Every structure is written in C-alpha cells, then in structure tokens.
C-alpha cells in the first residue's frame, strides 16, 4: 500500500532543513489566508464618526486600566444578541476600536461588560466604587483600589512619548495636543484619569454609518 504523504514524509524526516521548512510552510498558510487579509481590510482600520480619539487624560486612564488588569475580569465587547443589547446597550462595532492599541475586548466576565459604561454612573459613584466596591454594590467581589487615589497620573509612563508613538501609528494628534499633554494630567490622580476613561467608554457611538 502506497500513501503519497508518507513517502514524502520519509524524505523530510531524513533532512532537518527540509523538515524545518515544511513545518514553517504548513503552519504559515492559515495566517496568510486568514489573518493577513484582515490586516488589509479597510473597514477594520478606517476611522468613522463612531471612532473616538483618546485625549491625554483618557489615554493615561486607559493605561491605568491596563496596568491594574481591569480587562482580566471585564470585557469591552457587546455581542449582537438580544440579551446583551438589553443589558449593556448597542452592540460593539469594529470602527469604534480603531484607536484601541491594544484592544481590550477581554475573554472573561467576572464583572459586567464595560464597553458602554460611559455616562451610566456619576463620577462620585465610580470613585466610591473603585475605592470600596462593596460600599455601592452588595456582594461585589471586585478588588478595592485605594492606592489609585494616592498615585499621580503623571507617574504612568510618559504621556508625550506615548502620544508620539501613537502619532507614528496614524493617530491624528496635533503638535499642540502633544505639547499640552503633560499639563493636562498634571495634578490629577490615577483614580481621576481612570474615571475620565471609563466615562467616555462607548459614548462615541453615533449609530450606523449608512
């Protein structure tokens, strides 16, 4: 009984270079056919009126969100399902995320989705909730973040360099935006900027483009 694949394999398993090439070739096909076209799909990277360009404070707040690992327990992705739309608001669209580097859709909801949390609660509620979640939500298992009220927003990375890097990647920040960035976050705590970020989440959505 002759099976072509096996006889080809017998050549590969005697030649290490061919084997390495074979593995590289076979394993890259999926990425080339499936991932690469998505990288060139215009609708996945073109900004629309639904896309929100983060300000210096929001961007810093977003980095606080990442640093504390909020995305570990909260998704930012509302699926187009009746129950999800009722619970969280309009389902998420790709054009809402074109300025999200990295994406923060998450993979687990130990807490509720946050994609449209912006404007749903007052700043004071968020402050109380972040410092002591159980003071406002009975039997919540969210950690408390008292240190955020003490830490300065200016200590999170370097906002000017951050905006320059994003500018290089195509985010339309002007030189004035970047020059004013440090002053914008001066004196704010990490709690302040995190709340600023939470309050704009999902609010840029204007409805369908067409």
């Amino acid at each position: 009984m002759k099976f072509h694949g096996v006889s080809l394999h017998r050549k590969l398993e005697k030649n290490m270079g061919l084997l390495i090439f074979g593995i590289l070739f076979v394993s890259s096909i999926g990425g080339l056919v499936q991932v690469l076209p998505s990288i060139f799909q215009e609708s996945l990277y073109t900004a629309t009126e639904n896309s929100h360009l983060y300000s210096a404070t929001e961007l810093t707040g977003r980095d606080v969100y990442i640093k504390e690992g909020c995305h570990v327990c909260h998704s930012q992705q509302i699926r187009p399902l009746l129950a999800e739309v009722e619970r969280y608001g309009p389902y998420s669209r790709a054009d809402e995320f074109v300025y999200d580097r990295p994406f923060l859709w998450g993979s687990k909801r130990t807490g509720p989705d946050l994609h449209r949390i912006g404007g749903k609660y007052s700043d004071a509620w968020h402050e109380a909730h972040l410092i002591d979640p159980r003071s406002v939500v009975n039997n919540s298992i969210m950690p408390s973040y008292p240190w955020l009220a003490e830490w300065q927003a200016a200590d999170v990375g370097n906002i000017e360099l951050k905006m320059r890097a994003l500018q290089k990647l195509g985010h339309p920040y002007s030189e004035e935006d970047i020059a004013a960035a440090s002053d914008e976050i001066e004196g704010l705590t990490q709690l302040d900027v995190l709340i600023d970020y939470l309050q704009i989440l999902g609010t840029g959505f204007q409805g369908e483009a067409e």
Partner: protein
Amino acid sequence: MAELTKEVYHDGVVKRLVQFSIIWAVLGMLVGVWLAAELLWPGLDFGQFWLSFGRLRPLHTNGIIFGFGVSALMATAFYSVQRTSNVPLFLPQLAWICCYGWQVIVLTGGLSLLAGWTSSKEYAELEWPFDIAITVLWVCFAVVFFGTIANRRIKNIYVSNWFYGGLIIVIAMLHIVNNLAIPVTIDNSSSIFAGAQDAIVQWWYGHNAVGFLLTGGFLGMVYYFLPKQANQPIWSYRLSVVSFWAFTYTYIWAGPHHLHYNSIPEWVQSLGMVMSLILLAPSWATMINGIMTVSKAWKKLTVDPALKFIVLALAFYGLATFEGPMMAIRSVNVVSHFTDWTIGHVHSGALGWNAMITYGTFYFMVPRMMGVPLYSVRLANIHFWLALGGTMLYIIAMWGAGISQGLLWLSIDEIGELSYSFNEVMAGMVPYYGLRLLAGLIFLSGTVIMAYNLFRTMYGRNTVAVSPPEVIDDIKGTAHNPDAVMGVSPDDEMPSAGKGVPA
C-alpha cells in the same frame, strides 16, 4: 569506537530544568489557589496593589505556562533529543544558558507583572524588554535542539522531535508577530495593530500558544516517553505522520473561535469555527495512536505511576480536544463565551493534560537520571489520585458555574425583560467557586507531594553517566538504534528505523 563510548549525555541540565519546573509548578498553582480564594473573599489582597486580582492572574498563567511548562518542555526535549539522535547535546554550555536564562526571564518577568508592566494580551503580557529576551533565549534553545539533531547518528528524525521542532519554530513566528510594538518607556509600548485587527492577531497567537506549546510540545513528550515506559513501539507510524501534518496545518486557523460574535468579519469567525471542528480529527488520531500503543501493556498501568500519569493525560487530552471544538461552534459559544466554562476547559487541558503528562515524564526521568529507584512509589500513587480527583472536581465546578452564567445572562422573560441582573447571577457562584478552591488545593497538595518525592530521590546525588549506545550498521548501510522507539505497524514497512525497544 572507543571515543564514542566516552561520550555521555548531558543530563545535568535536564535535572536542573526539572527542578526549576517543579518549583514553578508549586508557586504557579499556589498563586492559582490564592486567586480562587480572592474570588470568594476579595479582601485577601489586603489592600496591596501587587496582590490585586488583575495583576496576580497573569502571574498565575505566565508562571504555569512559561515557568512550569516551558522548563519541562526544555528538560524533556533535551533528554529525548539526545537519546533519539544517539548523540550528546550540541553546545551544552548554551543549553545551560537556556536553562538559567529562562529562569531569570520567568522570575523578573513575573515581578514586572506584579509591578503592572503589561501589554494586556493574554499569554503575551510581558512587555517589550522581556519579549526581546525571550526571542534571544528561544533562538539559543533552537540552536541546541536542532544542532543536536544535525549531529545525529540515526538517519531518521524521530517523531517526538517533529513535535518539539514544531513547538520551537511556530512559537517563534507567533511570538514575534504578536508582540510587534513601538516601545514608549521601559514598561510601556504601543501595539502596531489596533482594535479588531489586534484581536485577530492576538488570538492567532493565543490559540496557537495553546496549540504548539501546550499541545504540540507536550505531544513530543507523549511520543517519546509513552512508548519507552510502555515498552512498546508506537502503534502506527503512518497515523503519527498524518496527524502531525494535519495538526500543524489545521491548528493555526482555529484562533477566531475566541472572537465569535465579536466585532470581526463573519467569514473569519466561520472559517475559525470550521477549522476548529476539523481539528478534532488530528487531535483524536494522536490520542488513539497513544492509547493503542499502551494497549499491549495495560497490566503495567496497575503498578507503574509514570505510565498511569501518561495514560490519564491522554484521556484528558481526548476530553479537552473534544470539548474545544464543541465550544468553537457558534451556537455553543454564545453560552460559553466570557464564562467560567472557558476557565474549566483551560484547566481540563492544563491540569488533566499538561500537568499530568509532565508529572509522568518526571517520574520516568528522575529515577533513571539518578540511577536509583523512586524515593516512594506509594507517595506517587497518592499523588496520582489527588491529581485525578482535583482535576475532575475543578472541571465539574466550572461546568456548573460557566453553564449557569451563560444561560442566566441570556435569559429573557415573557415580556422581553432580562430575567436576572449580573449581580444576581454572580452571587449564585459562591458554591461553585468554593468547590473550585477545594479542587485547586487538592491538586496543589498532590504537586507538593511529588516535589517532596522527587527532591528526596535527587537529594545528594549526581546524574549517572549514560553514553550513547553503539550504532550498529545494518545490511542496507543505515543505522539501527537500539534506544530508538520508532514504531512500525504490521502493514507498514519502515526503512532504517529501529524496531527495538530497550530493556
């Protein structure tokens, strides 16, 4: 041939990697247990930022995957590649650099996660300085591994080495592409991909870190240690060839099932789903090949702890690789996505498959390398039952939690209102989370017992010197390796591969 017999396998580095792997297993699982407890008692972070759930969870996953998992993969790869190539490691000093360099990366990387340095991408959280260090170390690993194969005295490259080779090559590709970013500060960078595209690239990486590291690499362990321990050749050579290439081709496509109903193109989701279902075939082909290999040695299962662990691992491999494709079906995923079902699925793989097979290889290698019997077979048997019980309890608790979350979140009453608030659903999780904590404790206690058992076996001893067996030229002028375990099925003629299994 006098010179040949003086050569000895470099097992010192294997022993050290096994020791580090055991330490990371205990620490990583301890962090996991702590996290399980924090979900019941959130005050357990004591107001310390570095004990906060969001920082500790990546430490748990990275510690287990890269500390415990990769150290074990390097150990078993170094152990088996020498014996299947009939030659000591290429550049043993570089192997030692791999060993210690990797531990430095895991340790400092873990601390950086606690400090809040993170790219946020799952299983790729470490920031750019670590990404560069990992790339350099990975190249060293590749040089030692492929260098040893290049020096081999057996014409055929044995099947376990295809899988270890796949691990090294594909993980390198995924790691480099997924971590492409512009560095901002030492602890911060901006991903070159944004939004939906970032999601697609991340899950191409994330799913295949599972595929080629946690599955492919550990299949390398199966193909070497299972036939050795069962003293049987691999059941079907042809099946191993077909399943290897089918596995390598198909796995890469399955990533988008992590993004069902998310804001990515529908064709990408559908393709991901179909390929995930197809993936069941090569996965089960490998499982069947393994189970059939051991089928002539069932009796050994009753007395041999190493074989027990390896065979049980194959059973959980079968379970997880069935559950995975099912969860990749969109209509099932609607329920399972974002819930604890996913956590349960991961642990049926990580505890039932990865940890068990690793334990089996440790119980195999350590007594052989030390030249003494295992310190206590009784303790190893106790460990076996704790590992099995802990894993089962964990999976069942997470099925209960995950399926209830999924169904209750989607539930809508007769007037179209949501039946349950998010808070109500999560308040009902306490019993499940309690069981999960217990399951974790049981599994961890088994691991601690193994650590004690193996360290007692190793304590105060050096590895014994093992030389490559002499190569015997056969009539065709190709080499038979008495230590090679390449199997030949009855209807399957193999040129130049040793059929023998050593005593």
